[in-house]
Structure formats: C-alpha cells, structure tokens
C-alpha cells in the first residue's frame, strides 16, 4: 500500500506536540535559571553560583524526604492497588508521636528542646517508635478495613479518606499531649546537636546544614534498603510478583495476604519516618496531612505508580521545580510572582501527563 505523502502532516505534529512542549519548557526553564532570571531574588546561576547551589541542595534534600514518604504510598499502591488517602494522616500522627517521645526523653515539658540537649538516640528512638506505632495502626487499618474488599479500588479509597478524616480530627483533639499547650498547636522536634550545624562545602563558599545533608543520606539509604529488599530478598521477589500478577502469585502457593500485610506495615512506617524527619525539618501542624498527601500524589503521579525508580524521578522533579520556582520566579512589583509556585506544580503535572498518562516510569494499567 502506498503511503500518502503530504508536505505537512499536521496530525503527526499534534501527536508530537506534548513532547515538543515538554522539551521546550524544560529547555526554557534551564536557560532561565542558568543565564537569564531577571529581577529574581537570586539572579542567574552564572552570576551567583552559591545561590544556585543552595537552591539545588534544598531541592535534593526535600526530594529525599519526599522519596521516603512517597515510596511508602507507591509500595502500597503498587502491590494492592490501594490508594491510601490516609498516608498524610499517618505522617501527621507519626510526627506528633515522634515529638512526644522526644519530649519525654529530654524532659522538654512542652518547650522546644535545644539541639544541644539532644543526642543521636533522642532523635532515633522517637523516629523508630513513631514508625512502629504507625506500622501497627497501618496493620489494623489494612486487616480490618481493606482486607475484605480487595479490588474495589474506589471503595477502598473512600474508606481510607474516612480514616484520614477521623485520624486528622483525633490528632487535633488530643495532640500535643502536654496540658500547657493548646491542642492542635504546631510542634517541632530538634535534630541531634552533632548534626545541627553548618559545614563548609568548599564550593563557591557555600555553608550548608549538616542535618539537611543527613536527610539526603537517609533518603538514599531508604532507597537502597528498599531496592535490596525488593530485588534481593525472597519477600521482595514475592512482592514484585504480586505487583505483576496478584492472582497468579497466590495460585503458586504464596500466602499473598501475609505479603499484603507486610507491605502495608512498611508503607505506613515510611510515612511515619517521613513524619519524624519533617517534624525536625519544618515542624508539623494540623494542615501537614493535606500538604503531604498532595506531595505523595504528585510524586507518584509524575513518577509512575508502583515503581521505585519512578518515585525517585518524581520526587526529584517535583522538589526541584518547587524549590526553583520559589527562588527563580520574578519578584517585580513586590507581590509577583513567587507566590504563583502552585501553578508550576500544575504545569509539571500537566506536562508529564500529557505525554505519559501513566507517569514517567509507570506501566499502563
């Protein structure tokens, strides 16, 4: 059959349009940040490399935290097709639990603890307790509310939304536990004194927080641990088999229910670990749950659900766009335009979905 040759195939152009727009936007953003960036707080990167490096490091460290949280969300979804809308609430409750444990370990009495009074254990034990407690709550949630209705994904999403409403309200009603503080107040924990300091990076004279760099290291460690677990152990093999074909895996004699329970506990614990980190990073307040549900959703939608590499890519893209948009949008006229950063989140989402509806690393469902 002879192919119709036309001088200008507009259909092809329309089909390639999303890719073109995505590439064009990326190139424009890079040129803007590196060479142009007029009337911004920081100016182009070639003129002030120090600001650029700080923004980049802020982006990378936030990406590490986003990865920790979103990988739990993605793990639960990838295996069970459960969109855990309570993920943000798990993080919120985890953050408050970490705060309470650190308070009782350091005899804070409801006051902010100075990092000089905090040693490594005063930070690690709260994080572990929070992860364990939320893991337990996650296990109960999964066994009581989600085990018997597998496959009804909308119903499960609605159930987890109901649970998130209840948890969020209960947290506001009861935390912080100290009677001297108003319920629902924002709280924060302190990093251990050993890492709560600046270090000279010897690049462009930048001093950067060791705690933030530790966060980056923690994110990488969680990523490597997850990778080893999923790709080098038997449980991980079963989980990956379950992601590919749930029915076939259970038909081969694997007790898939145990695997589901393990994955849900790990996923919920990762949310709580993220909560413990975030409580030291920025502090938690009753609106933290919605903010982190959004973060998890954007990361997994951009990266692709159920893929560990997709989560890495999504966290990096989203965190970098978020940080660079705050620093590199023009600030002419006082009000404009740094506050328009939410629009850029939408632009990122739109660009990725336009040419990959299943996310960057996701497979078609």
């Amino acid at each position: 059959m002879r192919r119709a040759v036309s001088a200008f195939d507009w259909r092809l152009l329309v089909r390639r349009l999303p890719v073109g727009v995505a590439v064009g936007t990326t190139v424009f953003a890079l040129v803007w940040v590196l060479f142009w960036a007029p009337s911004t707080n920081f100016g182009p990167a070639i003129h002030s490399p120090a600001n650029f490096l700080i923004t980049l490091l802020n982006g990378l460290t936030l990406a590490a935290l986003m990865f920790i949280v979103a990988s739990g969300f993605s793990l639960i979804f990838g295996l069970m097709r459960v969109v855990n809308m309570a993920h943000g609430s798990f993080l919120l409750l985890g953050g408050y639990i970490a705060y309470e444990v650190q308070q009782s370990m350091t005899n804070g009495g409801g006051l902010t603890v100075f990092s000089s009074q905090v040693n490594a254990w005063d930070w690690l034990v709260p994080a572990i307790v929070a992860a364990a407690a939320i893991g337990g709550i996650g296990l109960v949630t999964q066994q009581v509310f989600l085990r018997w209705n597998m496959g009804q994904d909308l119903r499960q999403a609605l159930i987890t939304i109901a649970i998130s409403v209840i948890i969020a309200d209960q947290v506001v009603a009861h935390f912080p536990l100290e009677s001297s503080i108003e319920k629902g107040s924002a709280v924060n924990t302190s990093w251990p004194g050993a890492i709560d300091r600046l270090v000279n990076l010897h690049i462009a004279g930048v001093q950067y927080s060791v705690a933030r760099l530790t966060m980056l290291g923690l994110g990488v460690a969680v990523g490597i641990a997850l990778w080893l677990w999923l790709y080098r152990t038997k449980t991980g093999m079963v989980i990956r088999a379950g992601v590919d074909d749930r029915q076939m895996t259970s038909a081969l004699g694997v007790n898939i229910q145990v695997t589901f329970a393990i994955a849900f506990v790990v996923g919920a614990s990762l949310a709580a670990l993220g909560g413990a980190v975030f409580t030291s990073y920025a502090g938690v307040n009753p609106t933290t749950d919605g903010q982190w549900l959004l973060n998890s959703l954007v990361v997994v939608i951009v990266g692709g659900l159920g893929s560990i590499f997709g989560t890495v890519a999504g966290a990096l893209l989203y965190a970098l766009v978020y940080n660079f948009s705050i620093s590199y949008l023009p600030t002419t006229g006082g009000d404009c335009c740094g506050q328009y950063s939410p629009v850029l989140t939408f632009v990122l989402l739109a660009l990725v979905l336009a040419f990959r509806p299943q996310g960057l690393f996701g497979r078609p469902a």
Partner: protein
Amino acid sequence: MSPFAWRPRPMSEKNLVELVIGVTLLLFLAVFPVFGVGYWVSFVLTQTFLIGIAAASLVFLTAYGGMVSLAQTALYGISAFALGNMVTKGAVKGLHLGLDPWLAVVLAIAITTAIGLVFGAVASRSAGIYFLMITLTYAVIAFTFFGQVTQVSGFSGIAGIADRTPALVGDPVTQPNRLYYIALVTALVVYFAIRHVVRTPFGISLQGVRDDPVRMGSLGYNVALHRTLAFTFAAFIASLAGVLYGWWNGVIAPDNVGLGATVDLLIVAVIGGLGRVEGAWLGAFAFVVINNYVRDVSVPVLGGSFNTVIGLIFLAIVIVSPSGLMGLWDRLWDAAGYREGSGPRAAAAAGTAGPQA
C-alpha cells in the same frame, strides 16, 4: 443488546413511585417559604440546593463517566472567587473590578468552564482511581493558589459578594426567599440537564467510555475527548453552585476549597449515592442537617469534633452501603422482588470500580 439501541422504557412501578414522591416533594418545597421557618429556608434548604448542585456534578462524572472527581469543590470555589474579584468594588481584597453583577456571573461561569476544560484535558487519559488522584492534586493546588496569591484572594478571602448581587437576587439576608427560589430552580434545571445529557448520543457514548474505554476507542470514539467534554460540563454545573455559594455566603475564602471542603463534598455525594443524580440533593440535605444538629455532639471515648462524627458516619456508609442512601432505596425494591436492568446504578453498586486508565 447493543448499548446504543437505547429506547425509553415503559414507566415501571418503581419509576411511578419515585415520580409521585418527587412531584410531592417539589410542590412542598415550592410553597415551603410561605409558611416555613425562616432559618430552614435561608440556611438549611438553600444550602442543600447549592451543595446538591456541586455534588450532582460529581455524581454525573462518577455515574456516567467513571471519573471520580475531587476537583468539583475547587471548581465551584474558582467560580465564587472569580465572581468575588469581578463584582466587588472599593476597599476590599482581591481585584475589586466592580463589574456589572450579571456580567460578572457570566464571566465567572465562563472562566470556570474554561479552567474545567484545561483540567479535564490534562486528566482525560485517566479514569477511575487515577482520575481521583489527579483531581485531588487540582484541589490542593487550587487551595494553595488562593491561599498564597494575594492579588486574587489571600488567606482571609474575599468578602462583600452578597452586597453586589443582581436586582433579581436582591439582598440574600433580608430577602432569603429570592435566593431560595433561584437555587431551587437552578437545582431543577441542573437535574434535568444532566438527565437530558446522559440520553443524548454524547451521553450514551460517554457511558460506553465508562464501561470499556478500549473498545470504544477501537470503535473510533475519541475517549479522551468524551472525558474532557464531560468534565467541562461538570465544571459548568459546579460554577453555577459557586455563583450561588458566593451570593449565599457573601464570603469566599481558601478554606472553602481546602482539603476538608473537598472531602465534605465527596461525603455528600457518597451519602446520597454515587450512582444516581437524585442522591446528590438527598446527601446534601443529610449532610447539612447532620452538620447543623450534630455540631456540638462529641463521640464518647474518642472525643474530637464534628469531623470525627462525620468521618465515622462516612466510614459506616462506605462499609455498609457504598452506593449510599439511593442505593439502599434501590436495594429495598430489589428485596421486594423488583428487578431492573443494568444501568449506572447497577454499575456503581456492583463494584464501584471504574474502568482504569
């Protein structure tokens, strides 16, 4: 039977009962302000009508398009913010353009519908649970946007919308009956518009897209376009609710489109039933009444506020009857030995699992 060979069914016993109930209720509502309590007119019922309109847009998308949208609250908020920015004047927040009230209404609806078109186009290659996630990000982005951007809103929002209503609407505080009837008529128009749209060729093929997007695609239907247009239509409906909300509340603030408000609208639709459009107003009524009279009740042992109560009610409904109160009504008829063919309500009751991307 081909799904396209649709023809009107002869009216069944159940349809007849529903018709009688509906007409009776309507007549009752039409004369209610004459002898009703002012509080019920201005607060409970007007609010029910306008929340019901927003919930109906969500039910329409879920029942007929397989798209569970959490962006409907954001869209009606965008409409109310647009109205507030254009209609107010003087030393208030926002752009205070001071436009003619009717012009502002038309522009608010047009802007919201256009944004709905963009939102819908971006999400149009997804459905079901993916659609829910993408639209939830829209909701949170809209909330953050209005919270941060001081030119159009800022944290405390825009007040004084009720002072600049068209002459037909009057002052919603001193003349609540006018807004009551306007909301009632709008709700009726929306209800019949949805019922009409789902019976047009577009509506029928939209239901085909809901049931089997792959097959519809291979039959030559543009799946993404159907979803985009359905979402745009739903955004238009939500924008009507937004205008009414602006008049009724007088104030629109970022909190009105926050995560809590988003989940509330979902709860309304689920209480009523995601399978039937009528359920939207039933759910809205239940929600407003519970919200009104359970405000000060606290759950024993747990404590907490109204949100714990509504969360527990929501949880119970999703577990016991995922198709909501209308689903209970349908099941009652089933139990009485009445059978009805497949339809959106059957699909919604069966698995609540929409087609996936």
